């Protein structure tokens, strides 16, 4: 199409200029007497400071999941000194906020404030760590609220699909589920939470990262002054070892009347410290991890089966995995699964072209630069790196490792990363319409 029938001669796409190397952030570090590791980085792009506190406390048994969720939700409901409202006001006054989240490996307290508010932010953070009081009435209210939110989450087909896949992949291991049931959180005794926090939220092994408009040496002193009183004893905990999943038939979760089917296909993957990780990252992206990938080209831009197909690497302390997700029109459920299998098979059978590999590696290098270009992004990336036992030099070395990945490296890592023999598949959809077409492809079992 051109306006009013005018034709425009094609022009050559400009090349890239010389890249400006990102400067590695300067990191100041100290370990406090209570065992807390503190890392501070100056990045004064806006007058704000961010803090991330990572506490390595694991979900080890099935009932821990709901208790962890209630710890997360209960921690800001009041302290020995302040009510929930007073705590929220104190944070608001410094332009601040504090949020608690978690997964099977850890709790994360994330917050920020205007530049001048850092000492107060650290005091409030410590007040919560030392003296969160879990007042009974507030905890019961929060449990009821979380139960409502979980019922809503479980009504979403995407959540059901993700959870079904994790359960098939990890079985009864803590990685096998992310959302507790509403009834489970209602059954957590409010009186148990203070002791649970004392036992599980401890400084030894924890990591505090500060990034923003701060002076690193001074920030470390401020942390030491504010947080030395956090003296709960104990150490980190870890999830049990993950047992390899057994491949089995396609698991079908019935959702009568659904106009789409949610496909999830995946298997184990190397972690960030594995020597094959750069090649695995390129392999994932090239196959389905970004818009230019083969999977998106095929089932979205060629066939129009789906809006947002993707594959992603997910990392836990004890295991990583790669999952392909595609929410497709009900009538093309089986054909879409055939195409996913085709793209996986192609990755395993043939090396990609050198151009594909170079384009993908360059994309991943650029994404890393973009994701560390903000205070919040740098804080999050640094926290994840340091928790994995890596350090800030990874930000310089990893781009070089990505750019060194060859087509043969990708082909080799694809043998295990995308291999049919380890693939686990779940589908959420209208069984009355999709079970027969899927059964014509592969063995199908219904979820009970």
């Amino acid at each position, binding site marked *: *199409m051109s306006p009013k029938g005018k034709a425009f001669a094609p022009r050559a796409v*400009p090349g890239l*200029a010389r890249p*400006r190397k990102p400067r590695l952030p300067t990191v100041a570090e100290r370990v406090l007497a209570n065992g807390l590791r503190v890392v501070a980085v100056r990045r004064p792009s*806006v007058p704000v400071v961010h803090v991330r506190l990572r506490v390595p406390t694991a979900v080890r048994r099935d009932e821990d999941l709901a208790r962890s969720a209630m710890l997360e939700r209960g921690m800001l409901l009041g302290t020995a000194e302040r009510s929930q409202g007073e705590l929220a006001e104190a944070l608001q006054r410094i332009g601040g906020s504090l949020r608690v989240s978690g997964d099977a490996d850890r709790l994360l307290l994330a917050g920020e404030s205007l530049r001048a508010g850092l000492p107060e932010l650290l005091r409030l953070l410590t007040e919560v760590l030392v003296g969160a009081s879990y007042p009974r009435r507030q905890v019961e209210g929060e449990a009821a609220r979380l139960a409502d939110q979980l019922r809503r989450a479980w009504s979403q087909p995407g959540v059901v699909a993700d959870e079904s896949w994790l359960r098939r992949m990890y079985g009864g291991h803590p990685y096998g589920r992310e959302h507790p049931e509403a009834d489970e959180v209602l059954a957590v005794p409010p009186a148990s939470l203070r002791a649970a926090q004392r036992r599980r939220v401890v400084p030894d092994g924890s990591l505090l990262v500060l990034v923003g408009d701060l002076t690193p040496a001074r920030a470390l002193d401020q942390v030491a002054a504010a947080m030395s009183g956090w003296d709960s004893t104990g150490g980190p905990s870890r999830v049990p070892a993950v047992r390899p999943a057994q491949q089995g038939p396609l698991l079908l979760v019935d959702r009568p009347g659904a106009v789409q089917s949610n496909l999830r296909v995946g298997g184990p993957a190397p972690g960030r410290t594995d020597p094959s990780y750069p090649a695995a990252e390129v392999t994932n992206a090239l196959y389905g991890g970004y*818009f230019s990938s083969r999977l998106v080209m095929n089932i979205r*831009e060629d066939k129009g089966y789906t809006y947002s197909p993707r594959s992603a690497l997910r990392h836990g302390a004890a295991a990583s995995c790669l999952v392909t997700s595609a929410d497709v029109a009900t009538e093309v459920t089986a054909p879409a699964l055939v195409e996913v299998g085709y793209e996986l098979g192609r990755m395993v059978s043939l090396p990609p072209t050198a151009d594909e590999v170079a384009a993908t590696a360059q994309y991943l290098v650029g994404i890393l630069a973009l994701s560390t*270009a*903000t205070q919040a992004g740098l804080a999050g990336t640094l926290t994840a790196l340091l928790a994995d036992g890596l350090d800030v030099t990874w930000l310089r070395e990893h781009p070089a490792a990505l750019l060194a990945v060859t087509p043969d490296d990708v082909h080799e890592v694809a043998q295990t990363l995308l291999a049919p023999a380890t693939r686990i598949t779940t589908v959420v959809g209208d069984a009355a319409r999709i079970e027969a077409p899927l059964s014509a492809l592969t063995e199908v079992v219904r979820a009970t």
Partner: protein
Amino acid sequence: MVSSAPVTSYAVERATLRNGLRVVVAPDRSAPVVAVAVYYDVGIRSEPEGRTGFAHLFEHLMFQGSASLQKMDHVKYVQSSGGTLNGSTRLDYTNYYEALPSNALERALFLEADRMRAPAVTEENLANQIAVVKEEIRVNVLNQPYGGFPWLTLPPVLFESFPNAHNGYGGFEDLESATVEDARDFFDRYYAPGNAVLAVGGDLDADAAMELIRTHFGDVPRRTVPDRPDFDEPAPTSERRVEHVDPLAPAPAVALGWRVPDPDDLDAYLPYVVLTSVLATGDASRLRRRLVQEDRVASDVGAHIAFMEDAFDVRNPTALLVEAHHTGDVPSDRVVAAVDEELDRVATGGVPDDELERVQARLTSALLQGQDHVLSRTLAMASFEQQRGRAELVGELPALLGAVTGEQVAAAAAGLLPDARARLDIVAGGAR
């Protein structure tokens, strides 16, 4: 606002090319990344009847090739340069943007200029993207509990005219009947360079960037710029109420919407922005305390301005929205009554200085965090330049919000009465 509140400012260079394209360039060398954004002054409100969803469908078509590029080349050039990209369709504008390492700036400018010159739409690509958009609607609306709540479901309650009330995702019949000829007409009419703003920000030299912009955009032919219609319509004079049965929702929800002053009049408008924060930002806010923590009639409550944009990139008419999720054993009238009482408390009791300062500190902090992100800062500049002729507002807003008084916030709340609003109840058809 606390007098020591920090401020930032961004130097802005601007130019208008001979073809009418307005350009703003804002250097910030703190990280080696740049953002490029093109805003076309056309959105969902400009769709003709019988063509619901067309502005959004056309956005998809802008990624399907152009004068010098095959289908998917645009995406591949951006991503293989290490960049990300997207586009979005809103009530009043459609935008296209990239964030990239700074060595890819010229390439990104070329790519945007190429599709401003001439997108390439074929029958095949059109059919493909109609299918993709239908899956987008299924995943976000039709197969999703609370799909479209309230951004698609409340406008037809609050508004009466087609431009303001219709479904911007579009009906499947309208989408399926769209033609290549429709796309050509839409482009000719609305995608003239004089109807667009280009904003470029980040790790760049302003003069060199302006030179590259002239090189690549300078010869995009000038075309007639359409008049932008006034979409204003009368506000409700009695409560407008609708119940909507959501067969997938496990619990009910309710949304309320009131008209607010024309966003163009910042003095009149900003008190409503502060009010949304007083009402529902954080655990210290009025509605969170009352509905969630004390009365426990809602598990979540939110307040914001505009149906799909943020408060600062929407034109008149728009609305202040309050939405709440509650359980089936709480009648929604109880939820709404608590909202009304809290609005009355702000209107009659005002907002004490201490509370106002806290709210303003938090608003400032949130705006600064947005500014730290080269892409969100550049998007905001493009929108401010397009709708208000002032990209510099990106750094000026904290002070403007800080100047709002408690009396102004109280006066804003005083106008949010039951007989001036729209109310939408979601009935839980999926409750077990």
